[in-house]
């Protein structure tokens, strides 16, 4: 996908978690363009920054969840979305899988796990529409 910036958007309603993820991303050597606590803000920020990667929590502030935000971002921007979720409910997993996720990580995320997922997402081709 052309026109994407080499940066990462972090979507999580918990400040400390978003901050911890930001540090891990920076340790990899990437730039965090923004963090968002809700789906609507995430969509707006993604459209503004056009990040190549989005780290997406499932439970967000507001009505919409991570999959809603991810679908919108996938449609309008084309970023690769890696879900970072505390849940492993079958219904949640099924919902995530409707959205061609570039990866799914479960909290707590181990050191190195995030690096592995981002590298894999960047090297993989764009999933077919």
């Amino acid at each position: 996908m052309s026109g994407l910036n080499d940066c990462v958007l972090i979507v999580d309603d918990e400040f400390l978690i978003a901050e911890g993820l930001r540090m891990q991303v920076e340790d990899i050597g990437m730039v965090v363009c923004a963090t968002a606590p809700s789906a609507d803000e995430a969509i707006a920020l993604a459209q503004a920054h056009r990040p190549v990667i989005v780290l997406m929590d499932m439970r967000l502030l507001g009505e919409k969840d991570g999959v809603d935000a991810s679908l919108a971002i996938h449609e309008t921007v084309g970023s690769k979305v890696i879900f970072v979720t505390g849940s492993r409910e079958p219904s949640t997993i099924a919902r995530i899988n409707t959205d061609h996720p570039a990866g799914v990580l479960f909290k707590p995320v181990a050191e190195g796990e995030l690096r592995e997922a981002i590298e894999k997402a960047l090297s993989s081709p764009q999933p077919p529409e």
Partner: protein
Amino acid sequence: MGLADWLFNPSGLTPHGFCLSWQPGLVATHVIADTIIGLSYFSIPLAIAAFVKRRPDLHHGWMAYLFVGFILACGTTHLMAILTLWAPAYGIEAVIKVVTAVLSLVTAVALWPLVPQLAAVPSGAQLLALNDELSAQVEAQRRTAELLSSSQAELRAVNQDLKRRVAERTAELEAANARLSAALEEQASVREALSLSEAQFRASFEAAAVGKVQTDPLDGRIIRANNAFAQMLGYDQQALVGRSGWEFTHPDDLAGDQQAYNAVLTGEVGAYVREKRYVRSDGESVWARVSAVVVRAPATGAPILTVAVIENIDARLKAQWALEEANRDLAAALDQRDLLLREVYHRVKNNLQIIDSLLLMQSRRLGDPEAREALSALRSRVYALGLVHHQLMGSKDLQTFDIGPFLDVLSRRVVQASGGGAITLSVDAAPLAVGLDFAIPLGLIVTELVTNAIKHAFPTGEGHIKVRLQTSDNHQVLLTVTDNGQGLRRDDGETAGGSLGSTIINGLVAQLRGKVMIFDNGDGVRAEVALPAPVRP
């Protein structure tokens, strides 16, 4: 002159030829004639004698011998006549003539009295005729005998046929008789069986623990009801007779029941089976399971009788409903519990992620590499706790999970977190279901042992770590973490007693009532942790 001379001395006498003057013709004629006569007279008596000899049955055969003697004597006289032509033996001739005369006389005298007797002897022709007649008679007799014998054979055949038919008829009669006896016997035993089965039916009808009712198939009127049914409805047994079974059916069930019963009555359905309510005499309703069949006339198929068995299922049904309701409540409670547990696990994981972030943030502010390393080790321990909750959340009962996949992911993440790209790992775990109380200490022990191996075994940054978990029949679990590194070193002494890692390992092994042993066998270190297997929750 003597007699001999008189007989044989012819002297003085003249031969007879002299009387004939020796005329040759006369002499020859005499000779020839006398010869023929003499010879013939010799031949005839021979023939007569031969004849008589052959026919000993002749009457008066002695007469024939008289003829033989007399003719022979005559023949001799003729031969003597030839002799006397030349020799004058007239004495001998006279003797012979005397003999002949005597014989002739005797014969002549004897013959006359015989004439009537001989005449009485039947002639050959008479005998032949007689014979013919006799033959005819014999033949007639033979024919008669034949006829008699053939008619006797016919008679015998007829007689035999008659005997056979009599025997056949007798056998038929006997068989018919046997059949009749058997039929009579069978009828008697059927009658006996019938009365027995009637008695049995009455007993089973009356004594049955389930309700039994016989009704008129068309108007539903009760013909007979047993005690169990009467008690079920709270009525006297006799009070039910004559009333319609439908009277006692709960109004809400009546329409459906009648529809189902009519389907049986018309033959659409073979049997009526319904769970329905009756209304008791006290107004309470009672649930029953009713099975009914319609008995029909064999010839016309017309309904004769309806036979119903009514089982009181009130208590059972109500217990079943209560159980179902309790089950539903329980299932709802379980669902609620599961929901809460998942929420708790979710929140624990989220909080651990927050702790991880805090550790990371703190680590950023530290300049001391040792302090940063300590915080990194803390993050590994936090991760182990998070992974246990993650496994629990994915398990079916939310309480136990298989240790194998957990150990595999945990060990790999510890190696990965250390940044040790050249360190390889193999994990081999037997299937073992574990809960939170076992998995958290074990997860932390494995984290410490693998971290230790990474930290101390491989100065070159290359090596292999083997994590293995075995179970035995005597409920023991053996965890081994083996490396192929440089072995224990003096300057690593802190790991033996003083370090945080050692404290954690020793403390948690003791908590699990196990033992830990460290072996340095020259080509690496092997840590063995023997634990009692977890008790299933």
